[in-house]
């Protein structure tokens, strides 16, 4: 199951809860304000670094670009809209709103 997060980890528990509940190995896709979790050098970086050990983490490139997120935490994979569609069609999804 693909887990999608669209909230900043600095204002919402969505990312923490998604990562904690998601089955080991299940991918997490960051979209909209969720992409801030992928920014290198934040207080969230150690948490995301832990999450990446158990889950492939993707971030939507247009949302990164729109927010000038800059350098990403090692291991985060950027996807464009086509990549987003590829992820979504592979499996069921759950959105952590």
């Amino acid at each position, binding site marked *: 199951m693909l887990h999608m997060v669209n909230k900043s980890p600095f204002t919402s528990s969505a990312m923490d809860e998604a990562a904690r*509940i998601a089955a080991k190995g299940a991918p997490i896709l960051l979209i909209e304000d969720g992409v801030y979790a992928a920014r290198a050098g934040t207080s969230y970086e150690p948490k995301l670094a832990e999450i990446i050990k158990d889950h492939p983490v993707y971030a939507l490139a247009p949302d990164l670009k729109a927010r000038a997120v800059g350098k990403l935490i090692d291991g985060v994979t950027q996807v464009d809209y086509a990549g987003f569609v590829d992820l979504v069609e592979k499996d069921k999804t*759950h959105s952590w709103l």
Partner: protein
Amino acid sequence: MEVDEEMEVDENVKKVMFVMRKAPHGSIYSYEGLETVLITAAYEQDMTMVFIGDGVFALVKGQDTTDIGIKGFIKTYGALEHYDVEKIYVDRVSMEERGLAADDFAIDVEVKEAEEIAAIMEEQHATIPY
């Protein structure tokens, strides 16, 4: 695929899980989620509710909304069993983080570990976020 085999048994019954993550009175999500569960249950689907994060506050007994001028809905949870919604799970970590225990809730729930919730989520035909 497991899912396909199940669908052959009865393709009209889907496994649907409602993932409840909002506190009860600060937004409409929690109430709308409960209403949607009851409506969906009327179609005799295989229903599960799981309460994660602030969602667990929705189940706390003793809520009295009289003085905030809105109709409370804690009593409505009592209707779930009459709609055969019996799989009601609470995430243990969310409960404990909020200083709650299973006997603080207005209805009977099963307290589950994250890994158990993950496995149940993976079995669903659909998961609905509230």
